[in-house]
């Protein structure tokens, strides 16, 4: 039998058990970001998601410092991700406070909070480099993501979180759709719009934090927004669009993780985002709901009929 190309071997799950678990974990993460991303996009929370993602950096650094101070390994995932979640929540609260309590607009609030938190994180990273402890080198993977050195248990934990996120979206699906389409109508009829918005933000936060290890904080927003943007070209129906978006997210993350498995030096997040981008391009052209091709054919048929 002819030798398969190494990428094909990995894609067809013929690599080692650990690689397979990591790839499936990445796919679960991609599905979750794709599903949550639909509402991040429809409710126009893409920029907030990006700010929140960048704001995890100081948290990761603080988590590292705290773990080392308490005698744990600086790469202990629980410390790093708890820290990430904490500063992400702080950033979200800061954005809301600035937008509500000052005369600055929301996009100004978002941009300044993103930059400030990220800058603080970079300073902390520099401080960590001067500490006399091991493991600092591992921290930069949280910027652009990596699958190398990922433990099986880590991948399984991330996958479980991803499944929980998808389940919550499924249970709140019609209410999330309603507030995304017509928030005033929802509010007028007694739906808790503020709470549902908070739920969207919380889900974004969870997928951002669990995505840090594989995709990294700089690019995770792309895995939230590119899949739904691509899915929009395949369906005019929020439900079907969400399924397609989850599938595109899962495929991008799976494929990106596979490439990074055969060349461990490539930043996994960047590869995943490029795969997602190619799927977006293909969707813009070939999408069955509003792709350029069906539109061109529709326009030609109209001209013929006229």
């Amino acid at each position, binding site marked *: 039998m002819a030798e398969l190309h190494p990428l094909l071997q990995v894609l067809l799950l013929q690599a080692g058990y650990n690689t397979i678990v990591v790839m499936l974990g990445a796919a679960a993460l991609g599905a979750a970001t794709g599903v949550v991303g639909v509402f991040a996009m429809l409710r126009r929370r893409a920029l907030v998601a990006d700010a929140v993602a960048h704001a995890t950096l100081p948290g990761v650094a603080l988590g590292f410092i705290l773990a080392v101070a308490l005698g744990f390994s600086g790469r202990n995932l629980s410390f790093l991700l708890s820290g990430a979640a904490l500063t992400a929540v702080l950033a979200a609260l800061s954005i809301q406070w600035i937008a509500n309590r000052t005369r600055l607009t929301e996009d100004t609030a978002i941009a300044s909070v993103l930059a400030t938190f990220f800058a603080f994180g970079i300073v902390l990273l520099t401080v960590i480099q001067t500490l006399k402890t091991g493991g600092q080198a591992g921290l930069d993977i949280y910027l652009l993501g990596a699958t190398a050195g990922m433990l099986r248990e880590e991948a399984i934990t991330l996958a479980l979180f991803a499944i929980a996120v998808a389940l919550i979206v499924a249970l709140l699906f019609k209410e999330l759709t309603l507030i995304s389409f*017509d928030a005033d109508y929802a509010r007028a*009829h007694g739906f808790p719009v503020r709470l549902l918005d908070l739920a969207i933000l919380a889900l974004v936060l969870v997928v951002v934090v669990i995505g840090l290890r594989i995709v990294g904080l700089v690019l995770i927003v792309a895995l939230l927004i590119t899949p739904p943007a691509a899915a929009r070209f395949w369906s005019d129906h929020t439900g079907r669009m969400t399924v397609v978006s989850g599938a595109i997210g899962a495929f991008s993350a799976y494929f990106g993780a596979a490439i990074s498995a055969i060349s461990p030096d490539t930043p996994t997040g960047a590869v995943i985002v490029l795969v997602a981008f190619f799927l977006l391009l293909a969707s813009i052209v070939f999408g069955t709901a509003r792709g350029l091709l069906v539109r061109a054919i529709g326009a030609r048929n109209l001209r013929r009929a006229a």
Partner: protein
Amino acid sequence: MTIHPLSVKNLTVRYGGRAALDNFSWDAPERGLAAIVGPNGAGKSSLLKAVLGLVPKAAGRVEIFGKPISEQRDLIAYVPQRASVDWDFPATAGDVVAMGLYRRIGWLRPVRAADHAAARKYLDMVRLGDFADRQIGALSGGQQQRVFLARALAQQAKLFLLDEPFAGVDAVTEGVMTGVFRELRNAGSLVVCVHHDLSSVQEIFDHVVLLHREMIASGPVGTTFTPENISRTYGVPLALNPGNG
């Protein structure tokens, strides 16, 4: 004592320091078609939004069938201005009408085939039965307005509050909506519309509220929609009144 579908007492709404609505009181009739009329910026939309709790009340009280709105959400149906939503949204006409059923479907439950069939029935009532699977952005403005009306019908409410339903719609839509409103009136409902077109008030409505930040006049169209009241509302001096230019 009669219980009014809508009773507004001394309602004031402020944006910043400016009063959009000042000490407004109105006891709506038990049933029928009521128009809220007034110039741009007179506080017509603010009135609806304050009634529904979408903007805060600086002062005053609102009751729906004698109780606060929080206890009466199932009795009201709100139709926002058509321009207030993004019609590019991934939804079909049937999906949007089904939203009117969400409260009855309840939390954590999906929209089922039976709900879509019900939505279709309400689309039929606004003569859009064949458009159930059409993406909402592919509908004309008038058809979009009828989708919104069908969504409100799906709620089986007793009090309908509509913000500019006749703005920019075609003649067919105007006819369909007027027909639906009359059926609602005959069924005992009250339909309240923010309305901008003075020329059609007499033809469509039987009650009118003339509003310019405060209540100018309200009552049956025949006795209330007079040139004097209209000129007081719009601040235009009437030709009959040459001395006061």
